[in-house]
């Protein structure tokens, strides 16, 4: 059931979540011994109809890695091949949370007696894994984290020592009929192992169903993997869903840069995630609208030339703020990159520099000499000037 046609588009670490569609998650569940309904991945109405002929009444589900499929009408129950075909026609091509539906899962319907919730997530406050379990399916992970202890059982695990079967059995014992406890506990322990082995940030089964025959079956699977772990999760990486991105964002990712396009008209180039966000914030505080997030922190500080060229490709820019606060990143090296591209492309966009920190004296004199622009020493002044320049050009 693993579909291999999804390419991995995660060249920039830390910029995107690595999400997986339901079919990939379910294939992994099957591998560790958690049952899932019979199903096939299709991309045409006729294939869905054929599958429904074989499987009987089915669920037709869009394969996009987002929790809003149900609300978008991209999950439908059908009872015969004709209905299956109609459902597929309606769902194919839908855009949900930026993801376009090109494949669907056609899955045999399962007679359910109870719907449960199960997840294992990275838990920042305890610095370790957290298992979440509830006898009521249907909530999302945030609700589960906020829910009262009576409704949701939370088990903090130790990565070193793992989860004890007895701990899990005790934790869920009060919430379930006695004859289900062992089977559900076993599924939770297998889910925990899968979480550990895949470097998952979250793995969630919602709902985890107890069928009328008493079997435990996963009716959905949400999986997001830590992108920093992709170097050691290569086989999994190839199965990741393609994240929606604009052509500029994709070009930046290919160059190893983090670029996020926004609605505004004031372009931003800064070093470091915190400073770049702060620069965006300052643009808003002074009454402007940021056009983007683009940072060249860390080792990327040597790519200021490429970053500047990418920024200048963004249509509709009315002014640009370049805000450098050098620590690890050297201001002179970053300034040289901006100057090189600026002289090559000669854009007619007003640009305002604020330069501070490692290599700042040299950077300031280079900007003054090469571009004839006097850099500001205070970022507020640079941002305020850029906002004013943008306003005067509209």
């Amino acid at each position, binding site marked *: 059931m693993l579909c291999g046609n999804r390419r991995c588009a995660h060249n920039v670490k830390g910029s995107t979540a690595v999400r997986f569609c339901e079919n990939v998650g379910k294939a992994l569940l099957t591998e560790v011994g958690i049952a899932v309904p019979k199903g096939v991945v299709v991309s045409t109405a006729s294939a869905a109809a054929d599958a429904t002929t074989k499987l009987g009444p089915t669920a037709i589900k869009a394969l996009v890695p987002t929790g809003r499929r149900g609300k978008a009408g991209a999950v439908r129950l059908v009872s015969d091949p004709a209905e299956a075909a109609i459902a597929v026609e309606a769902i194919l091509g839908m855009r949900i949370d930026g993801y376009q539906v090109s494949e669907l899962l056609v899955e045999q319907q399962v007679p359910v007696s109870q719907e449960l919730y199960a997840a294992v997530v*990275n838990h920042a406050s305890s*610095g370790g894994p957290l298992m979440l379990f509830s006898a009521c399916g249907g909530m999302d992970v945030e609700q589960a984290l906020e829910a009262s202890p009576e409704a949701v059982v939370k088990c903090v695990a130790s990565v070193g020592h793992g989860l004890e079967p007895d701990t899990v059995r005790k934790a869920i014992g009060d919430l379930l009929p006695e004859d289900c406890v062992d089977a559900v506990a076993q599924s939770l322990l297998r889910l925990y192992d899968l979480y550990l082995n895949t470097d998952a940030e979250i793995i969630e089964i919602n709902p985890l169903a107890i069928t009328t025959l008493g079997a435990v079956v996963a009716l959905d699977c949400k999986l997001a993997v830590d992108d*920093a*772990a992709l170097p050691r999760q290569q086989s999994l990486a190839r199965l990741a869903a393609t994240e929606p991105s604009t052509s500029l964002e994709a070009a930046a990712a290919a160059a190893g840069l*983090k670029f996020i396009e926004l609605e505004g008209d004031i372009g931003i180039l800064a070093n*470091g995630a*915190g400073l770049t966000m*702060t620069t965006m914030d300052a643009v808003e505080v002074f009454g402007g609208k940021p056009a983007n997030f683009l940072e060249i922190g860390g080792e990327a500080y040597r790519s200021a030339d490429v970053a500047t060229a990418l920024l200048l490709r963004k249509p509709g820019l009315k002014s640009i703020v370049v805000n450098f606060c050098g620590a690890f990143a050297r201001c002179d090296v970053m300034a040289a990159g901006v100057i090189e591209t600026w002289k090559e492309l000669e854009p007619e966009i007003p640009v305002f520099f604020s330069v501070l920190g490692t290599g700042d004296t040299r950077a300031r004199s280079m900007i003054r000499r090469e571009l004839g622009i006097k850099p500001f020493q205070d970022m507020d002044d640079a941002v305020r000037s850029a906002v004013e320049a943008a306003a005067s050009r509209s």
Partner: protein
Amino acid sequence: MILRRNHRILVFGITGRQATHWVGRMVKYGANVVGGVNPRKPGIRHVERKVWASAHDAAKDCRFEVALLFVPPLAARSAAVDAMEAGSNTVVCLTEHVPTRDVMYMIEAATANRASLVGPNTPGLVTPGETFAGIMPAFNPAIFQPGRVGVISRSGSLGTLACHYLTKHGFGVSAFLGVGGDPIVGTSMAEGLRFFAGHGTTEAIVLCGEIGGAMEEEVAECAEAAAKPIVAFVAGRSAPVGRRMGHAGAMVAGRSGTHASKVRALERHGIPVAQLPSELPALLYNVMSGRRSIESSMR
């Protein structure tokens, strides 16, 4: 958590280009670097210091309290565990993109060995006028001056900017603690605050947070117990939901980790939040006025 000049530092990955550069700056500033670790180059000398294959080997020849990690992401876990088991009580992990699962093991190793883990993805520790470990411009007099304000930041670049504004307005920094930009880190802002609360030299604290996670909400809960004036800035009010803003930890997911939630939590516990970093000195002056300490906190 506060680095002193007499603290002996062992640098993992010392032979790399960036480590060589930064160790040079640290030593010039006064840091006590006793040597380095590179499993492939034991026995050589680098930047006039000995290089061992592991902290375990280094511990046979010398003593060290602090391990500074300039290692590749997938090597961080074993380096940190090696350092802690060899007796280092503080491990500062500068490396970005360490898998979160490895960070969890590093945190458990820290607990087991009664050591502190700072980071990963931290810009390091600075004690202005005395010593530093990491990649902060401690040596730039427009950014760091010795003083009595403790600074805790998730981000290096934003922390640099905040320290600059303090310096520009006459406040000095007692110590800078970079907690790191990852979703899960060893030392949290709340632990940093508890530490500064008990630090005699520190009379006020500046918190530089950002969107994502719950560290700001947690540190807010500790404000009353700290019993020292605190001010804050939180980056990311303009960030879109669901996108990671450079730092792996800086993402608003649904309702949690938002700028508004963090500002609300901080203000509820009496911590004024600046709209921009440039407002931090004025806020600091406000919360400190009425206290005798204000004069002594100014340089």
